[in-house]
């Protein structure tokens, strides 16, 4: 049975709207606020969920009128991700809890007289329906036809249920839409990916090279802190960016490169470093494979050659190459994080990896350290059934080097086509607003329309909730337990997240939802605990700690097992590559039919009257996750379109003028964006912060505020190596009169 076209339901169609309370901070008696006292406050450990850096900290609560209320969040001094200092988003995380627009109760899609809307439901009704529909999909098709997309801590609990059903199609958009190419490139080169947090030894570096990475605007906490330490210690920074980013303004050298030409610059740097014999000879000889091939490969890639492509002057290319070489091995050519730009991203990141190898920075102090983490035991549970199909079957014979599931690949495979015999029939979406996360919204919506069943688990009524059959309101990270954080760092550690307050409204933690769902599906054995605390305590006791201890300390630092933070100081070392060496010449890529060494290829230029659409981050926001947060939207309530003054003059644009954008495919932005006229951007591109301009009208502070880059990204350049979705080949022109009237 085919369901009707999935109408996008704006969650406004739920009964009466909530009453807007005036801020509880304002009393009308004119009485000054008393200072809250840290000594009388209670504190609860957490790790942050406002971004993926997962800093550990303390949530302070205070008693107000006999009620314990969340007051503030500060960093945990023992935490290596934050060093006791939260970023603005973590500090403003209190707003995630207080946001009055939160999802409040389960919702079920209903149809009456041909009109679809949501009705409020009990947890039993919602979970019963999910259990029933998932079982039906599994029966009618196969369990493998159920897919999950997750970018939130709660996803772990749902993926357990999905695996118990027999599907492993579980993806995070943080791979194919973000950091995937760098992982594949570094695995191809060093046999090891970068991971998160990036093991860049920034605080000990002498030279930090940023290519399109705007640290300071992307607020990846530990990294921002270490960049500041490096500035204190006199390190030089080289920033390659067509935009005068914050990092560019801190740099000894800013290279305002012509967009989409980075590989040419990287090849020219290699040329200078090899040609002038500035590379780390001992390191290259001992640890690398393919140097002679690389030398021949970059022989003709002179700075003069690169100048014609990148517009960076040859002497600047040479000077910056010398700067890096003189810092070697304490130099970092930073791999970046969001690297899905032009579809040849794995090759660009290969060039970054190779340049680091020439300078001997991998495994060296001031370059890349060797992180260490711990693995916690898992409570015994039955084995998962072995799936007959996996996410790899979503794109047969393609992207074989992808290490993780591709969200975009699974989305594409949901749209039926003659060459696929089983497309996905049901999606579970946790903590990711797929509408703005995946490029080409039309494609995403078409996939959604083809689904039999969609569940969305979120804390906020973001765009994607409007496409759900059932919406489950998750409580915020401040109100729940989650899995323990055990990410790798300079030292291993464990961090605990526990509730600092009871779940507001009728929201619930993911562990509870997943457990109830498993029970209703007859999969209760896979969740071998009544309360998640039992499981956490069991894991911690297996490790020699306890939940009680962790509730007191929040973070447990553990000594390294191995004294190999910097592991390539002449020691013997076998890399997990085909040759056992750092592969300057990649045998794995060659075997798959790709270039074994990176080549520059020209990318399309914006046509007349069009400008390349670049996008990025603001330090106080994490995509749509934060745009409605009362504290964070108070710091930045909308994005603006950065336009060079000469461009603004050409089109007679004024400061703060509201305009619309149309892209190369005729897609027009839904909402107006204000113009920011600034010298900080060149004449061939425009720029906006990602995450604004949302269509979810229940987000009172965010709805229609600013522009959405994501709706204008319809030209997607797929990385043939791993399926990453290159998103920086979209061009926009200005529309001055409202196209929607």
């Amino acid at each position, binding site marked *: 049975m085919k369901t009707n076209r999935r109408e996008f339901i704006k969650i406004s169609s739920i009964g009466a709207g909530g009453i807007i309370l005036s801020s509880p901070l304002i009393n009308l008696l004119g009485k000054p606020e008393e*200072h809250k006292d840290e000594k009388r406050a209670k504190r609860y450990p957490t790790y942050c969920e406002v971004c993926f850096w997962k800093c550990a900290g303390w949530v302070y609560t205070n008693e107000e009128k006999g009620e314990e209320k969340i007051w503030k969040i500060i960093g945990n001094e023992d935490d290596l991700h934050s060093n006791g*200092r939260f970023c603005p988003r973590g500090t403003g995380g209190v707003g995630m809890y207080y946001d009055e627009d939160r999802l409040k109760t389960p919702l079920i899609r209903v149809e009456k007289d041909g009109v679809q809307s949501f009705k409020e439901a009990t947890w039993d009704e919602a979970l019963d329906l999910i259990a029933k529909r998932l079982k039906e999909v599994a029966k009618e098709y196969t369990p493998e036809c159920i897919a999950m997309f997750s970018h939130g801590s709660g996803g772990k609990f749902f993926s357990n249920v999905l695996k118990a059903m027999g599907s492993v199609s579980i993806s995070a958009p943080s791979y194919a839409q973000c950091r995937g190419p760098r992982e594949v490139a570094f695995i191809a080169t060093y046999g090891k990916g970068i991971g998160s947090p990036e093991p860049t030894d920034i605080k000990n570096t002498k030279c930090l090279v940023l290519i399109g990475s705007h640290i300071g605007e992307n*607020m990846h906490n530990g990294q*921002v802190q270490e960049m500041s330490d490096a500035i204190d210690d006199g390190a030089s920074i080289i920033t390659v960016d067509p935009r005068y980013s914050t990092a560019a303004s801190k740099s000894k050298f800013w290279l305002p490169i012509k967009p989409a030409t980075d590989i040419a610059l990287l090849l020219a740097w290699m040329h200078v470093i090899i040609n002038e014999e500035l590379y780390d000879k001992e390191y290259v000889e001992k640890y690398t494979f393919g140097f002679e091939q690389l030398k021949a490969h970059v022989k003709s890639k002179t700075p003069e050659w690169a100048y014609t492509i990148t517009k960076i002057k040859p002497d600047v290319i040479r000077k910056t190459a010398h700067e890096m070489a003189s810092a070697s091995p304490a130099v970092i050519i930073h791999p970046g994080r969001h690297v899905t730009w032009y579809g040849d991203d794995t090759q660009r990141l290969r060039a970054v990896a190779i340049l680091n190898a020439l300078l001997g920075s991998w495994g060296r102090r001031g370059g890349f350290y060797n992180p260490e983490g711990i693995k916690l035991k898992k409570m015994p549970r039955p084995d998962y059934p072995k799936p007959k199909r996996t996410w790899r079957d979503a794109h047969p014979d393609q992207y074989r080097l992808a290490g993780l599931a591709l969200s975009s690949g699974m989305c594409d495979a949901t749209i039926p086509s003659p060459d696929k015999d089983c497309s996905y029939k049901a999606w579970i979406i946790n903590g990711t607003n797929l509408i703005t996360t995946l490029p080409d919204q039309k494609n995403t919506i078409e996939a959604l329309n083809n689904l039999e069943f969609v569940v969305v688990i979120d804390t906020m009524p973001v765009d994607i909730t409007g496409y759900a059959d059932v919406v489950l309101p998750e409580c915020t990270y401040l109100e729940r337990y989650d899995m323990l954080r055990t990410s790798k760092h300079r030292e291993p550690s464990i961090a605990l997240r526990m509730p600092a307050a009871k779940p507001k409204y009728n929201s619930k933690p993911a562990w509870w939802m997943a457990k109830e769902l498993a029970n209703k599906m007859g999969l209760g054995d896979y969740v071998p605990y009544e309360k998640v605390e039992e499981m956490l305590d069991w894991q911690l006791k297996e490790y020699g700690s306890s939940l009680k201890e962790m509730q007191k300390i929040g973070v447990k630092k553990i000594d390294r097992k191995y004294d190999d933070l910097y592991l390539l100081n002449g020691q013997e070392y076998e890399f997990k590559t085909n040759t056992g060496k750092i592969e300057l010449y990649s045998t794995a890529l060659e075997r798959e039919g790709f270039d074994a060494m990176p080549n520059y290829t020209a990318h399309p230029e914006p046509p007349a009257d069009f400008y390349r659409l670049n996008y990025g981050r603001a330090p106080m926001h994490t995509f749509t996750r934060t745009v409605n947060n009362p504290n964070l939207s108070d710091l930045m309530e909308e994005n603006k379109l950065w336009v060079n003054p000469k461009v603004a003059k050409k089109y007679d644009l004024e400061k703060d003028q509201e305009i619309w954008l149309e892209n190369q495919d005729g897609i027009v932005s839904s909402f107006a964006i204000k113009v920011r006229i600034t010298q900080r951007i060149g004449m061939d591109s425009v720029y906006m912060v990602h995450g604004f301009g949302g269509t979810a009208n229940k987000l009172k502070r965010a709805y229609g505020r600013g522009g959405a880059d994501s709706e204008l990204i319809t030209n997607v350049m797929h990385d043939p190596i791993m399926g990453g979705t290159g998103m920086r080949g979209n061009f926009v022109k200005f529309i001055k009169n409202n196209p929607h009237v």
Partner: protein
Amino acid sequence: MRYGMAVDTNKCVGCSDCVVACQTENNVPLGYARDWIVETVDGTYPNLFLELRSERCNHCDNTPCVRVCPTGASFIGDGGIIKVKPNKCIGCAACIESCPYDARYMHPNGYVDKCTFCDHRLAEGLDTACVSVCPTKCLYFGDVDDPNSEISILLANNKHKTLIPEAGTKPQLFYIV
């Protein structure tokens, strides 16, 4: 004893963490702020200079805000911290007008509010909320009268400026440039 603050503009990334930390620590109502970020851009692409800095009350030595206050609500506290007694404030806003730095705002409860250098935290031996949260550690706080304090040593060794020195207010907020 004279409290002062230094902001290293070479490190500040303008993230606004100081703003939100102050708001939560001090119950500053949303829509208002005791500290804020200023960005200045000079030059023409690609020859540019950007300065990002965290601003707040300058806790001046020469205080127009205290002088114009008709009720004595604005006063100079210990260590030169300029404060407002909410109960004595009649909300006339003369101090807001007189401040060259626009560092005061009218609290919705009807009194003037401003940065206190978190003196309630200083009393506990803690740093101000903004200093303790700053991810780039670009904020320094201390006794500028003591030549051996971290802030005095920092100012002695680094080129710095104050804002609107021509107003003659002798500000105690210093910007390392």
